[in-house]
């Protein structure tokens, strides 16, 4: 390990910023939030996804339309992540498990692939310059277990999704349920 603490600290900050950028893409996609999604890329960045290859303003519209056409909800989970930094350029490979709930309400599609990214640090910010998606496997499974767990709040594709709330609060009906209960013992 290099002995210079300032360099080490910068390396860790860079690694964290790159992983945050990769995560931000998934979050933007799963919330259909074009601002969050586009912000993961530099303005002249290129994305290649299946039949699509092109620039980001077109890509974010294409991506959202694709997901709205057939699905009710989806998550893109980032797992294995490797990253090499060379100055202001980085190469990252981020595994993704995507799970999509079909509009028929009966089937769930599960797939796995890898985002291959060339990222660049410009004006202090790491963003994607080129992304290529490789898909490794897919299958469809019985999704009829959905609905057997009542009471869970479903996600949304707008800023009313609970993940945007600051500070996070309970829903009014849950606040009411909580108010009817005896408080926890001790410091409260």
């Amino acid at each position, binding site marked *: 390990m290099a002995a210079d603490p300032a360099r080490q600290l910068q390396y860790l900050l860079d690694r964290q910023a790159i992983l945050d950028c990769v995560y931000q893409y998934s979050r933007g996609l799963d919330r259909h939030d074009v601002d969050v999604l586009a912000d993961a890329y530099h*303005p*002249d960045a*290129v994305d290649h996804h299946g039949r699509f290859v092109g620039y980001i303003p077109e890509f974010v519209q294409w991506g959202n339309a694709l997901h709205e056409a057939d699905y009710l909800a989806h998550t893109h989970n980032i797992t294995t*992540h490797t990253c090499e930094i060379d100055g202001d350029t980085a190469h990252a490979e981020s595994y993704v498990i995507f799970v999509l709930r079909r509009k028929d309400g009966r089937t769930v599609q599960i797939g796995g692939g890898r985002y291959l990214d060339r990222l660049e640090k410009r004006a202090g910010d790491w963003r994607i310059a080129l992304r290529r998606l490789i*898909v490794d*496997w*897919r*299958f469809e499974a019985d999704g009829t277990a959905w609905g057997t767990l009542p009471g869970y709040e479903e996600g949304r594709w707008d800023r009313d999704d609970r993940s945007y709330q600051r500070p996070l609060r309970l829903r009014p009906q849950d606040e009411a349920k909580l108010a009817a209960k005896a408080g926890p013992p001790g410091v409260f």
Partner: protein
Amino acid sequence: MSKAAETRLRRLEKELRYLRDRQDIFDCIHRYTRGLDRLDARILTGVYHPDAVDNHSGFVGYIPEFVKWGIALEARYASTHHGITTHTCDIDGDTAHTESYVHWFLRLKDSDRVRAGGGRYVDRLERRNGAWKITLRRLLMDWQLEADGALWNANVESFALGTRDHGDPSYQRPLTLPAKLARQLAAKPKPKPKPRTARRK
């Protein structure tokens, strides 16, 4: 430098060292799944110390043998995908103990079936000459399932496929588009750059 400033600097260095150790250990665990999925013996061997031991279901042995055994096992499938998720790590000096959840998805050859499973890599790692590598790995399995993967073979969306050699785009430096896609892109207008504010810190 005052005594207080010296103490503060030493603490900062220690904290920084801890973060760097955590990152290096995490990278080592992730390199393993990358090596396995690309059938890359060099990457796989590089995550272990030379005297390391691996215990994978019925297999227990040293790394040169393990790498051959593991690659032969994975090569029986059309493709494999191992994902690391939940990860915990205790560092005690130059030794670390980690548990890393893994799920794998295996496409059967000449079939529409996909096999999936989940388990945990339990590892003892050591730092030698500054490099964190595995000295003992045990795989514990938690679940397995088989599913219909006909969707895959249809590939109506024309997703790009990986390969298990150095031709896989994950090895390419710098990453570029293949010629056919570059031509497709050339037909599109480039977006005009808009001024943007720096990302919120």
